């Protein structure tokens, strides 16, 4: 079994120029955790996720790779956090994506499981090796359904 057979070939995607507000609407409305972001040619740029939304509520200084590892000294209320998120509503989503490890259509199923485990993610983008186009998304739930179906 390969990534090709596990993936959903028609996932919901975001365009790189879509705004944070659009992404947040999709995530809330469909209760999604991860939305892949593609450019005009359909190439995978990264994933906008609920974690991107969390980041959008935090000061940039906290997000730096050598940034502060705890911020318990900041006493902001939910309104302050919302205000920061609100100020970034019109940002393009491409500024806030995470680039996940990807699978290719011929990646074996076990490798896909390992990618999910190591990446602590519930969805793995499947990307064409040669042109970087997004071919589909493997969701943990699809895999689980297949697994349970087989074992029953």
């Amino acid at each position, binding site marked *: 079994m390969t990534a090709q057979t596990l993936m959903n070939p028609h996932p919901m995607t975001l365009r790189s120029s879509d705004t944070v507000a659009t992404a947040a609407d999709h995530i809330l409305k469909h209760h999604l955790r991860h939305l892949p972001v593609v450019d005009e040619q359909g190439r995978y740029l990264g994933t906008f996720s609920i974690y991107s939304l969390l980041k959008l509520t935090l*000061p*940039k*200084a*906290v997000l*730096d*790779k*050598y*940034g*502060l590892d*705890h*911020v*318990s*000294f*900041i*006493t*902001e209320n939910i309104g*302050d956090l919302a205000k920061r998120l609100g100020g970034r509503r019109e940002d393009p989503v491409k500024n806030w994506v995470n680039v996940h490890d990807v699978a290719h259509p011929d990646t074996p199923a076990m490798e896909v499981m390992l990618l999910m485990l190591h990446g602590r993610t519930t969805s793995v983008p499947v990307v064409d090796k040669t042109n970087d186009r997004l071919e589909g998304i493997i969701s943990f739930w699809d895999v689980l359904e297949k697994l349970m179906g087989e074992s029953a």
Partner: protein
Amino acid sequence: MHGSEADAASVLFGLNPMWVAAVLFAITYIVVMTEKVNRAIVSLLAAGLMIVLGVLNQEAAIRGIDFNTIGLLIGMMVIVAITRQSGVFQFLAIWAAKKVQARPWGILVMISLVTAVTSAFLDNVTTVLLVVPVTLLITEELKVSPYPYLFAMIFSSNIGGTATLIGDPPNIMIGSATGLTFNDFAYNLTPAIVVIMAATLIPIYFIWGRHLKAAPEDRQRVMQFNEREAITDQRLLKQCLSVIGLVIAGFIFAKALHLEAATVAMTGAALLLLLANFGRDAEHQSKHVLEAFNEVEWITIFFFVGLFIVVHGVDGTGLLKLLADKMLALTGGNLTATSMIILWSSAILSAIIDNIPFVATMIPLIKAMAPTFGGPEGLMPLWWALSLGACLGGNGTLIGASANLVVAGFAERAGQPIRFMQYTLLAFPIMLMSIAISMIYLYWRYL
């Protein structure tokens, strides 16, 4: 001069050892400058070639390594690696910002002072790694540009580092090679550093400081930071502060106790490791000790090891003595002229090249001048000129010191990049001003 004919193995192919050493040395410098190959690789490879080509044998090479410098660096790095986990540096930065009611210019001055004082006792790179994130957070909350703050921090880390024996690698090397103590450095350099720090803030005020403004509600947000919450581990903090206190006391009384700086730092590191791991089971101890050791900058350490061997090899061939004689011929053996040449050339060269290999080369060169100036005592002004020039010169360009590049990295990621030329155009003149102050200071006090 610690090199001797007996150190040299037989040079391959009957080549002149002075030429072999000089060529290897020059290639090492050039490759380190290009930054195409990691500097630790370059220096270790050059050290290996020095031995293989027979400029010196392994025994002599090991004698060339200044283990006092290596031990002092590793010991302090371990102490800092443990101390940073306590959150004390964030505490200091926030406390300082609130002391000035979160006024933007006041914060710039306070953050500069915190950076300078911390750099005087800790490695400069570590200092900026700890203080920059809080500074970026504060400027973001105040909605002011972080640029002037980061610019000031580069300067204060290098200026502060010059003040003490343990503040900057050049001082560690000079202290170790000459036997000058922690107190000697504090007594001779700190007064100049206080003046230079204050003088550096003046142009920063006129360029940026007087235009910095923040809205009252934004300042209010910073005032609401609770710095006590920044301390993550009270017990660890007490242990760290006690050990750091003991280590500094050890440096101050090192001479009376007949101890070398490396002994003080390494024993302090071992004591702090013991305290921080007390009561943990074997597995957790291994994990935490390994974490602390992993924070040691091994690239810097091995760079030093290789470099000491290369310089010892060059020194043993008499090349540095030759250069020292040339320099003395140029200055006519005049102490004032020699001091000034060392001060200004160290400053300008350190702005462009790494000051560590430069100082490693200058130390035996200056030592060779002792007979001209009436023995080692007569060299004092030259050591202070070398220290001030090599440490402060690092401010001149973005590549002048490692801390500069670390700050530039933060600036880049925060979307406020510090451009090389833009930085140099302002920083180089301010650096020259600090060297001019050093010149007046040296002249007034020693010449």
